[in-house]
């Protein structure tokens, strides 16, 4: 071998090629062997520099090379560290030119220890790569000083630098998605990928918080490195994205039975790392927050729901919670956390999974409401759902979920695994809840619409049976369970008909009308279709597809007509008898098995009765699930189904006294409600705008106003007060709360008992909109 070829590293390159191609080596053996080969070659190049020139120099491996994790496509991250003496440029040229000549990707720097520290202080990525600095050759004392000072700097500056690292992690997660849920994930950049395992090391090196020493995280990291090694060797390129076209060959190379197993194992690894990262970053935030405070601080515990409190930025169990006796507690805690934009504390999830009994079947309505409130919370539901799923609670509640966990959908329009697509669809659907009269069915259909995947046959047809069955277990009425099944069966109907059938052909419209049947189901199906397609990916809901589906829905809606809003049920004889009693009569029935209880109030009809009674119930921390208002001659009968937020409902006599006092004007409800609101946690998740709609042609002798909004304590009081304040009379009303969604219908008349004139309608719409907080003129309309 000539000296020229030796300098070019011909022998090194042929050895390196042999190591890359050697199928007998495990991934660990290969990356250690590659690192040692490079170490040896660089050491020889360094030794060839005359001793008087290289004295005081050290060659240091940083980044992946520093961790001995060289893969076939990795860059060589090398730092030549020197004192102030000597000629650094000459030494660098002698070492680095042969590496460039060999065609290797060299990421190099030539610095003194002080310069390296200065760069690390400015550049977070440089600092992270220096944390892994490893001596290769030369003056070991220089490398030791570099390591010691860089690590000391990192610890000293941790309070400033870790929040920046956290922001970088968040931005990367936003851009690259989550490893566990993507069909073509980037093994390094995606959240839960290799980059996050390094961020965890950096946190541990700061001594601010330790990373969880979970075997699962170490195994996950090793598995991701193994897959990355196979990916580089398969493609011969340095990219780290696991593309569909490579899944099969990589699965083969790793001895896996099929590509789905590969994706599932990558997803599981991603989930383990992401969970450790979530926990660690929350620890960091807590520790840094505590450091900034002066004096001893005991975090406040604010109540979120029965048995659930907020503690230091997380939802945890209250001291008096009894998980062993409370099957609904996990769902209630999850809903409360998601609605407040919090996460469930890891220990809380563990306890809930270990101690709570199974839910009875059918589910009590409180469990169903909590599930709906969780799904209705929008994006903050994702992390909570993940925690429940990881703890095994989701499959305990919905065993059918197991089949779709991490399941790949091999179509180009999907970007997520099936389970993630389902929860993403529910999240998108939670923004459409104001478009439909039954937001509960929309959210459940979104969550279950693809549960037929993985079974033989058409997944929409098998899914219908599964969804209807789950609906019954969840305690839906037989009709609602059947409608849930129908939505799942037809979840692809609208896009299929819109893109594959002639919209001008009456048979196309007739086919949709036959399948859907009623206008309210069309509303639900249209919202489900948009949520499903939007969650699938941008290809599935292009502007053209949206336009074609919207056009079809408009045509079908014309045929079906509008859906009539509900009317109050007839009063029972005893309620009519209550109405005939003088003064104010109140009856509170014993709570039913589902935890709700009926409150019936009869009083003299006045414009403010509904608002006043709603206010008193709110002050007693009673949540309104349903309410109907009926006027009988000069009297009004209000029938409520309420649920106590904490403990038992108040005694009948207490409630009656409070209602009488309030109706007599002896209670200042607005100021007491305002005081109550200020006690509550400030952050309220509102991701769908409320809507106020006047529905024409439903009633000949009243104006019908429908309000759809996010439910919150005092909502009905504010609405009824605003409507009464606009000078109109609420003749009857039907109020329903479905999970976290309120759908209220008011039948309004003027003082003469007739429908409202135009200007009064505008006034009442404006008043109701204002009562909802931030009225959106686009959403407040007369149709």
């Amino acid at each position, binding site marked *: 071998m000539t000296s020229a070829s030796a300098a070019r590293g011909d022998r090194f390159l042929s050895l390196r090629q042999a190591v890359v191609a050697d199928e007998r080596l495990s991934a660990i053996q290969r990356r250690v062997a590659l690192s040692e080969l490079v170490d040896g070659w660089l050491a020889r190049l360094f030794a060839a520099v005359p001793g008087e020139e290289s004295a005081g120099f050290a060659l240091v491996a940083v980044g992946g090379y520093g961790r001995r994790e060289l893969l076939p496509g990795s860059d060589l991250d090398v730092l030549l560290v020197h004192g102030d003496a000597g000629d650094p440029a000459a030494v660098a040229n002698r070492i680095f030119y042969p590496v460039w000549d060999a065609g290797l990707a060299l990421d190099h720097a030539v610095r003194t220890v002080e310069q390296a520290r200065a760069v690390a202080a400015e550049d977070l990525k440089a600092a992270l790569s220096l944390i892994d600095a490893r001596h290769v050759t030369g003056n070991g004392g220089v490398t030791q000083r570099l390591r010691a000072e860089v690590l000391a700097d990192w610890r000293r500056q941790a309070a400033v630098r870790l929040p920046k690292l956290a922001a970088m992690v968040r931005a990367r997660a936003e851009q690259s998605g989550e490893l566990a849920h993507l069909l073509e994930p980037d093994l390094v950049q995606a959240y839960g990928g290799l980059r996050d395992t390094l961020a965890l090391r950096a946190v541990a090196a700061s001594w601010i918080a330790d990373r969880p020493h979970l075997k699962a995280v170490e195994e996950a990291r090793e598995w991701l490195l193994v897959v990355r090694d196979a990916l580089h060797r398969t493609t011969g390129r340095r990219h780290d994205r696991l593309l569909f076209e490579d899944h099969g060959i990589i699965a083969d190379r790793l001895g896996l039975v099929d590509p789905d197993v590969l994706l599932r194992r990558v997803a599981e690894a991603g989930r383990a790392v992401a969970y450790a990262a979530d926990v660690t970053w929350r620890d960091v935030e807590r520790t840094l927050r505590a450091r900034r405070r002066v004096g001893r601080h005991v975090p406040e515990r604010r109540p979120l729901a029965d048995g659930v409190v907020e503690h230091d930025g997380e939802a945890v169990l209250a001291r008096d919670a009894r998980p062993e006796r409370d099957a609904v507690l996990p769902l209630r805690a999850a809903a409360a956390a998601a609605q407040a934009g919090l996460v469930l504390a890891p220990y809380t999830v563990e306890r809930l999974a270990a101690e709570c009994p199974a839910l009875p079947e059918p589910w009590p309505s409180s469990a169903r409401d909590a599930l709906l409130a969780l799904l209705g919370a929008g994006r903050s539901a994702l992390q909570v759902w993940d925690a429940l799923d990881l703890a095994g609670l989701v499959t305990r509640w919905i065993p059918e979920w197991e089949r779709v966990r991490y399941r790949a959908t091999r179509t180009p329009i999907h970007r997520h695994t099936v389970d993630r697509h389902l929860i993403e669809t529910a999240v998108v659907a939670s923004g459409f809840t104001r478009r439909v009269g039954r937001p509960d069915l929309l959210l459940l259909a979104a969550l279950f619409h693809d549960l037929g995947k993985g079974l033989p046959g058409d997944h929409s047809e098998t899914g219908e049976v599964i969804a209807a069955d789950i609906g019954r277990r969840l305690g839906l009425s037989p009709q609602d369970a059947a409608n849930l099944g129908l939505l799942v069966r037809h979840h692809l109907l609208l896009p299929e008909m819109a*893109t*594959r059938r*002639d*919209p001008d052909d009456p048979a196309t419209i007739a086919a949709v009308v036959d399948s859907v049947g009623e206008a309210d189901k069309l509303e639900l199906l249209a919202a489900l279709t948009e949520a499903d397609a939007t969650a699938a990916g941008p290809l599935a809901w292009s502007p*053209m597809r949206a336009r074609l589906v919207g*056009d079809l829905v408009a045509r079908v809606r014309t045929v079906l007509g509008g859906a009539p809003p509900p009317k109050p049920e007839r009063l029972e004889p005893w309620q009519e008898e209550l109405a005939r009693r003088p003064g104010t009569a109140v009856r509170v029935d014993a709570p039913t098995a589902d935890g709700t209880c009926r409150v019936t109030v009869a009083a003299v009809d006045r414009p403010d009765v509904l608002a006043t009674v709603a206010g008193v119930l709110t002050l007693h921390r009673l949540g309104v699930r349903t309410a109907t208002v009926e006027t009988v001659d000069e009297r009004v009968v209000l029938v409520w189904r309420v649920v106590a937020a904490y403990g038992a409902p108040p005694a009948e006599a207490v409630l009656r006294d409070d209602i009488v006092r309030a109706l007599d004007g002896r209670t200042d409800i607005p100021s007491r409600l305002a005081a109550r609101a200020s006690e509550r946690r400030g952050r309220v998740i509102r991701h769908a705008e409320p809507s106020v709609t006047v529905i024409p042609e439903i009633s000949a002798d009243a104006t019908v106003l429908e309000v759809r909004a996010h439910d919150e304590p005092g909502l009905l009081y504010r609405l009824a007060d605003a409507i009464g304040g606009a000078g109109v009379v609420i003749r009857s009303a039907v109020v329903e709360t479905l999970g976290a969604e309120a759908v209220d219908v008011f039948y309004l008349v003027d003082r003469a008992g007739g429908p409202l004139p135009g200007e009064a309608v505008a006034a009442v719409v404006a008043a109701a909109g204002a009562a909802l907080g931030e009225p959106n003129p686009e959403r407040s309309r007369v149709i």
Partner: protein
Amino acid sequence: MKLVTAVIKPFKLDEVRSALETFGVQGMTVTEASGYGRQKGHTEVYRGAEYTVDLVPKTRLEVVVDDTDVDDVVDVIVKAAQTGKIGDGKVWVSPVDAVVRVRTGEVGVDAL
């Protein structure tokens, strides 16, 4: 070689694609498009209010074929895309100077 471009009604894509596959066309490019021809859009009634749709959703399909197949391919597309109603679309043919298959470097008819 010729480039055959067809603008058709979106719901006709499956039929046209299947007819072209039966004829022996192995690849095509499909894009979502919108536009109007002589029909000048149309008027819709939505919740009682009339509104004019200026641009109608269309699907644009492109196939490069050998000169000898051009007439047959156009014929296949026209037959499959036809409903007989206004807005069925258009097909046009333009000359192609060269074609290269990126993966193999094959050129001309071999690259089709």
